[in-house]
């Protein structure tokens, strides 16, 4: 069986075969042979090279969260996830650059007005979550084209806060 996944934004292929109770896994530049033990819906154990490796997993919509040897991975199917993993800003449909909220929270201050010029890394909006203020900054130099939120708004992660018209190069 072959699978393709998106791990931290990069496509990774994995193949999985079972023979005589032993699984052969080929992925990430190497191969491992393992006995695989399903402990529960959220835990499997791979016995490989004499070692037991406990892995914890949980489904989150179309993503699979895996905790492997103390490191957490977000794994999604290569197809389903194309177009996700925004890095905080992105092109909007009409050409502006969208500045998004990095986490859910509450808008507590707007530091620019529509039409203002902005430098790269200039703070545009302050979003508070869990009692800490977080400054959301411009990804590049330009002009504030549109502000989508007002002070007091509760925003979700990835919500567009501001659109910037990039400065002509």
């Amino acid at each position, binding site marked *: *069986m072959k*699978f*393709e*996944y998106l*791990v931290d934004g990069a496509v*990774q292929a*994995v*193949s*999985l075969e079972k023979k005589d*109770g032993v*699984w052969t*896994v080929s*992925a*990430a*530049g*190497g191969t*491992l042979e*393992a*006995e*695989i*033990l*399903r402990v529960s*819906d*959220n835990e*499997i154990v*791979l*016995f490989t090279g*004499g070692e*037991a490796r406990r892995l*914890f*997993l*949980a*489904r*989150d*919509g*179309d993503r*699979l*969260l895996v*905790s*492997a*040897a*103390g*490191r*957490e*991975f977000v*794994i999604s*199917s290569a*197809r*389903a996830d194309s177009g996700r993993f925004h890095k905080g800003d992105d092109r909007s449909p009409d050409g502006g650059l969208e500045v998004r909220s*990095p*986490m*859910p*929270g509450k808008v507590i201050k707007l530091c620019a007005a529509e039409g203002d010029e902005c430098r790269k890394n200039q703070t545009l909006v302050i979003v508070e*979550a*869990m*009692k*800490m*203020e*977080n400054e959301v900054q411009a990804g590049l130099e330009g002009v504030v084209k549109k502000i989508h939120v007002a002070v007091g708004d*509760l925003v979700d992660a990835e919500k567009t806060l501001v659109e910037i018209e990039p400065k002509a190069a």
Partner: protein
Amino acid sequence: MSFKKILVANRGEIAVRVIRACREMGIRTVAVYSECDRRSLHVLLADEAVSIGPAPAVDSYLRMDRIIEAARSTGAEAVHPGYGFLAENAAFARACADAGLVFIGPNADALELVGDKVRARRTMEKAGVPIIPGMSAVPSDKAEFAAAARKLGYPVIVKASAGGGGKGMRIVHEEKDLLAAVEAGMREAGSAFGDSSVYLEKYIAEPRHVEFQVLADGHGNVVHLFERECSIQRRHQKIVEESPSPALNPVLRSKMGETAKRAMLAAGYTNAGTVEFLLDADGRFYFMEVNARLQVEHPVTELVTGVDLVRQQILAAAGDKLAFDQDDLRQRGQAIECRIYAEDPSRNFLPSAGKVLFLKEPCGPGIRNDSGIYGGWEVPVHYDPILAKLIVWAEDRETACRRMAAALDDYAVLGIRTTIPFLRDVVRHPEFLAGRTTTAFIGKHFAAWSEGGPDEEKTRLALAAAAYADSSGPARGGGPAGPAASERAETPWTSLGGWRIGGPGE
């Protein structure tokens, strides 16, 4: 005497902690909760629960009137405020007294005195307690800040008069950044404590933060329960605490402990409290402030001294005399605490609210996990991001560090990001293991932290898990297409026969 019913005016792990202590003393508990905390753990554990308003803290956990009404209507005799929210609010302590409720904390006068950091500094100065140079009053005019800062000399630190826990704090190195820092500090202080006043202090670089736990009954007896080393901080927020401090020797410990007691006596303090000191590289220490509450990091003291601080708070509030004196108290072994926050350390510690899809908490000898969460629970965006505290005790510091490292490896939280991966690296850092813990530690060694490098082996394990889950697990969610259902039926639960592990060459 004791109480029959106590209202716990808090949420999260500290409310859970207090509820457990009450239960063990045979005292019934009343939880209060905001709308988004209906199914929070403290509500599930309490004997009764009362709704006190919408999610924002100003509309619920900071609403004195509703909390006092909840206590009255349920017949509670006393209120435990936990930490944060109203814990150090003298007006709340007075309102409780006016309503015939015992406030489990310091008396209102002492609370007011030490809560006003500027007055507290003056009192301590008079009592002969060494203090850090700083403003002697909260200014009425913002222009006074600039003049004071110039007099103290940069760098200076902006501090909230009412608060603690890093809220409202800003270090300022140059005059041009002063006003913005003061304003940000005031906003944060106002939203965290309902009081936006801030003041300035001289900033001492790379000190250790060493605090002494004190207990005072209402009968004139004061003891200290030794120190907590709290130097490992990020954004002035403690993240790892321990006791004993690697920096103290018995002479310095005794001197600082006696100073802490003198400070509390000068303040007319009662109940549990903490005296915070800065300790510089030459062993000079300065009074910083009194934390007039049970502190987040109280468990390290409990594990080292064998004294249950919440229990002592309740007994003291009930009018009991302290059952032990200074000579009865001993430090035994080493305790370390790591704070587990809902923050993503790989994205500059952005808060990470959301649903806890899977939770596995560490357990075992010497491991204590004070947690306010459970699998399936949704972490709200409205409050402090603290989820739990992992505390270990061991015979010596080296073993305690290893035990903590192992316990963090055993801690799995899926669905939200936490500080666990960051803490894993902190407690394994050679400078931490060597006990060279100053407040500059994180900035020096973890400024550019990221979670491991590309690790092909771990990635391979994770990919194997994903492929295996998709090929043989129950189909849940819209995961990638696996093999046909008929293949899926053969899961390892029923088909494991014949494998053997271990032994060379197998």
